[in-house]
């Protein structure tokens, strides 16, 4: 199996304050990789480094086998950022226009080709949002908006999908259906990196987990991850130890895919 991401001794500081310190790991093609850690532990910063949004102070990142700084295959990346970073709440944009953005890195200039329009139609169907394609993005619920952004990554036919707290403020039902969809996409071979505030959710869905606290405090199979080793994280995430969170021992076999 080849490697989607290879991270070697990566360090990053915000004006002298280290946020990511000597982190090394790799992610295989098709893997579902979870990033957990308390607030301020550097999860989002690490994700931005992995996507090339930030440049590391030192260390090396290879994406799809190429150095990230020279990598230009933007069309292979899908990203669902934290909701607070988007401006779509005031912008007139139809759902279809947002999904079509997935094709923009493939076709930045000139008229869309038939295959671009087909990819957009298929993405709308895959994510089951065809019925709202002509509605205004900002009028949708938080859960629906996140599905639209997922559809954008599907339209891009992304090989790597990164999600940063994708279901914050989303109700339980929409959240469950979102993760079902995420699993389906991952089963089709889309390498997935997930940051989520709910530790149980990450354990349930991820193949492997990296626990961050500036550096890695755990790296290994999700089934073997002991949440108590991340007591600070468990406190910070504040998620109730309800039905969604499962101990590794009670983890069903089919969740470690």
């Amino acid at each position: 199996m080849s490697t989607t991401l290879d991270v070697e001794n990566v360090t990053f500081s915000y004006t002298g304050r280290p946020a990511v310190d000597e982190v090394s790991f790799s992610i295989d093609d098709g893997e579902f990789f979870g990033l957990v850690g308390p607030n301020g532990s550097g999860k989002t910063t690490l994700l931005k480094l992995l996507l090339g949004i930030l440049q590391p102070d030192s260390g090396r990142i290879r994406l799809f086998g190429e150095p990230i700084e020279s990598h230009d295959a933007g069309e292979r990346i899908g990203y669902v950022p934290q909701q607070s970073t988007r401006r779509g709440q005031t912008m007139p944009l139809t759902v279809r226009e947002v999904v079509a953005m997935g094709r923009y890195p493939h076709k930045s200039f000139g008229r869309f080709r038939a295959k671009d329009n087909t990819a957009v139609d298929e993405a709308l169907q895959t994510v089951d949002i065809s019925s709202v394609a002509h509605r205004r993005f900002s009028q949708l619920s938080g859960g629906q908006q996140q599905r639209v952004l997922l559809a954008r990554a599907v339209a891009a036919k992304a090989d790597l999908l990164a999600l940063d707290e994708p279901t914050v403020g989303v109700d339980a039902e929409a959240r469950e259906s979102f993760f079902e969809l995420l699993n389906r996409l991952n089963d089709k071979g889309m390498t997935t990196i997930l940051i989520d505030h709910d530790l149980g959710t990450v354990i349930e869905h991820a193949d492997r987990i990296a626990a961050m606290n500036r550096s890695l405090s755990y790296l290994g199979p999700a089934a073997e991850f002991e949440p108590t080793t991340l007591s600070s994280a468990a406190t910070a995430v504040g998620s109730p130890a309800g039905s969604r969170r499962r101990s590794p021992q009670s983890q069903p076999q089919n969740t470690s895919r």
Partner: protein
Amino acid sequence: MTGIARPVLRGLLAVLGVVVAVVFLPVAFGVMPQRVFDAGCTASQTLGSSFFCYGFLWNTVTTGVFIGIMGPVIGMFLVHREMALIGETLAHTAFAGVAFGTLLLGVSGWDVRLLVVAIVVAVVGALAVQWLVDRTGSYGDVPIAIMLTGSFAVGTLFIDLGGGFAFVDINSYLFGNISITDDRSVTLMAVLLFAVVGVVSVAYRPLVYITFDEQTATAVRFNVRGYNALLIVLTALVIVGAMQILGVILVAAMLVVPVAAASMLASGFKDALYIAVLIGVGSVLAGIGLSWTYSLRPGATIVVVAIGVYLLAVTVSGSERFT
């Protein structure tokens, strides 16, 4: 889209495109046959006005239509990136450019085209704003306020150093003037129109992507910094062009108000862009007409008309989706 049917919108745009191509571009490049001006004058007199009997008013209307198109085209990207005040800032930077031109005129007597000087200074100012934004990490209040007041202060000093108001009617640049556009200015405006509409047409997708979601745009390898610089330079060009009629103080309204109105009426970005252009052109034409008829300042009249359209849009849409 809500309220306005798409075929009607496309039809109106087609009409605007034809009128621009057949009437305003020939006027701008000085190739319109004299008999068309004569016919316009006759038609105007038949309606009880001598409006189209004045050559400079043809220039004014032509410049106004170009502003009505360019302002909203750029404004769509500024407003939805919460950069509305950038336009106002660049207008003040352009004012410093005009003032610098007066200084050159006063000191050396060179025949400096104020508009060209204003464009150069505004573009330099635009890049300075971008540099400040990159350094401070946001389009926050502080770099904008510093550039806005700073360039106005520098402009005022230039005027003093250049001999006060002796060499040019600065009042026209502050509040706009219906008769300020000469033949060369209107030609320059046509060139700006081609540049702005052409560049936005080509770079439409990256600009929309960056406007919506800058982080993901960076992740998928759009040159965000480059497009940001491009957008701000284009803004400077539009501002300098529009400043002639609207004046420094009111020019930003042409970038903001039609966009705000259109964003109430359309669900999609492209539809909103087209509606904003129609509102922009309509407001400018109505504003110039009222300004001429009632001897009002054109900039203020255009802005009040545009805000009237915005309030109408708010009422018609009955929505709070855009404020």
